[in-house]
């Protein structure tokens, strides 16, 4: 199934909208972990953690190896990078817009004879 960039980003942002899932992603950013290792710091049952992992897996943010006995979770960098890059691109867009708006506002408010105060 092919999804558009927007649909992929929607799924990524929806998955990241939950604090527990953000925490899971942040921990996996450092290295692969098993479900048991991921469950440790949370006051959550294994089925509870599994539910969060399924959402992250469906969004493409994490993958789990089929063959390994403990099925460690792996962060999929490209999916996360796409989201981070999108945020950075939009931050830059607004930053550049605001730089130019600042210039425009100065021009609008400059004394009409052009003399500096």
């Amino acid at each position: 199934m092919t999804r558009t960039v927007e649909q992929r980003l929607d799924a990524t942002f929806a998955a990241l909208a939950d604090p527990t899932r953000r925490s899971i992603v942040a921990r996996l950013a450092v290295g692969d972990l098993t479900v048991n290792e991921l469950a440790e710091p949370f006051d959550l049952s294994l089925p509870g953690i599994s539910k969060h992992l399924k959402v992250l897996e469906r969004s493409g943010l994490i993958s789990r190896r089929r063959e390994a006995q403990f099925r460690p979770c792996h962060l999929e960098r490209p999916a996360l990078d796409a989201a981070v890059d999108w945020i950075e691109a939009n931050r830059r867009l607004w930053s550049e817009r605001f730089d130019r708006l600042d210039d425009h506002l100065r021009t609008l408010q400059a004394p009409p004879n052009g003399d500096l105060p």
Partner: protein
Amino acid sequence: MTEHVLHVTRTFDAPRHLVFSCMTEPEHLTHFWGPIGTSAPLDQITADARPGGAFRTVMVNDADGSAYPTSARYLEVSAPERLSWIEDHSGMTVTATFTDLGDDRTQVDIEQINVPAQMMDPAAQAGFLTSLDRFAAHLARLTGAQR
């Protein structure tokens, strides 16, 4: 289930009504809407600033002339405090809040949300406290060496 994806803030040395006008009138938007290296031609801006009104712009790349049209609808136009619109294609909602800081200074806060505001329940709105852009910066720090 949602919260803002991006929060950008900036303070301008100008009165609030003027900053608000700049964000809603084509004659002003043409001066700054396109980021560096692009322009936003006046004759291709539509800003029918009322709820349901069209907000269309085209950003033209100065180097090669390629054009990036965007099309949105205004959701809220409350001069001079708040302005929001939803992009037709992505469903992204952008809210701009204008705060009068006194002494002719105005703070503008931009929030981008990836789910239409009218679809959010109060519980979801309460989730706005943490922003994904801060999380993204945190992750970039954590994993900077690996990128």
